[in-house]
């Protein structure tokens, strides 16, 4: 019974469960998954295609919920994440765990029953990779956390392709490589301007552990293989000129921004504008490239 002296534990709102799924991160996941599906050489029934994308979204949301369940302490220490449902005290941790496991299981089972076993298997691997390899194992232990953990975010185009064809080919593997190699410069650009947040939370992000200079060098270094993976589908004959020219122009701009960040020296109170610009453009870059891939398939 609730008394005046007992703090009232309100049940979490549905909006808090939605927030657990990191809807903004999910946008890019859903988009790259959809592009993988649309770029595949086989047309898929619209209902089955919709179900595949729904399962990718649910799987990503579940992985996000399990990440927030495990990292509630880190989130509480960082300004950027302190308002999330668990650190803000709007939800009990077991509720987040049950929600995450339930939605993850549902997404994999639905993918297996309605779409195909290959897509379900890759979806399961991507969820387990994000939760166990990245969140539990790597994130608190090594500054290379997002390099290896970046693979988790690279799975959606592979899942989309597998949903349409039932197998995996060279093009989706190159898309996987593109997102995998894009993740370090994308996250390290962010880590450069929220360094204090990560340091306060004890997360060994590269700028915290190795310093700003090394991080800038690494952004420059990872941009090179990323550029190669982005452009490669064109000379290999896997895509046409629409994707090819878009990839060349978009990647050249990315490389120019990354080079500026890589060679910059900053002092106290620097506004970090080039780093913020690179971070924002890196998101747009993936949207443009994957959009061009679909346009290339459908209109070339």
């Amino acid at each position, binding site marked *: 019974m609730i008394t005046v002296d007992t703090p009232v534990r309100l049940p*979490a709102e549905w909006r808090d469960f939605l927030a657990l799924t990191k809807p903004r991160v999910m946008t890019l996941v859903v988009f790259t998954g959809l592009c993988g599906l649309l770029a595949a050489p086989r047309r898929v029934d619209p209902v089955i295609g919709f179900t595949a994308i729904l399962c990718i979204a649910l799987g990503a949301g579940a992985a996000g919920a399990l990440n927030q369940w495990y990292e509630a302490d880190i989130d509480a220490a960082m300004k950027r994440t302190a308002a999330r449902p668990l650190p803000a005290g709007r939800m009990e941790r077991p509720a987040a765990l049950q929600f995450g496991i339930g939605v993850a299981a549902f997404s994999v089972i639905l993918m297996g029953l309605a779409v195909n076993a290959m897509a379900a298997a890759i979806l399961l691997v991507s969820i387990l990779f994000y939760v166990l390899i990245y969140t539990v194992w790597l994130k608190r232990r090594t500054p290379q956390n997002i390099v290896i953990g970046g693979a988790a975010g690279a799975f959606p185009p592979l899942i989309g392709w597998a949903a349409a064809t039932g197998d995996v080919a060279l093009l989706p593997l190159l898309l996987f490589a593109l997102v995998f190699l894009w993740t370090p410069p994308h996250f390290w650009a962010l880590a450069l301007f929220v360094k204090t947040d990560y340091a306060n939370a004890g997360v060994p992000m590269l700028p915290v552990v190795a310093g700003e200079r090394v991080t800038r060098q690494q952004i420059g270094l990872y941009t090179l293989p990323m550029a190669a993976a982005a452009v490669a589908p064109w000379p290999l004959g896997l895509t046409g000129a629409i994707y090819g020219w878009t990839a060349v122009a978009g990647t050249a701009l990315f490389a120019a921004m990354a080079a500026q960040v890589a060679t910059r020296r900053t002092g106290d109170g620097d506004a970090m504008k080039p780093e913020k610009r690179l971070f924002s453009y890196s998101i747009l870059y993936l949207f443009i490239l994957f959009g061009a891939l679909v346009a290339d398939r459908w209109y070339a």
Partner: protein
Amino acid sequence: MTPDPQHDADELIRARQRSRARVTALILGALVVLFFLITLARIRAGMPK
């Protein structure tokens, strides 16, 4: 009139439960429709051309 904290808290909890129940009902309804459409699509895919 004296405010009753006990009553206010109960009301708030019930409002949250109602809101969650509504969203759950909507999701379940959407899933019923989706499963029906998936069944039709799978039957269509299994039919000879």
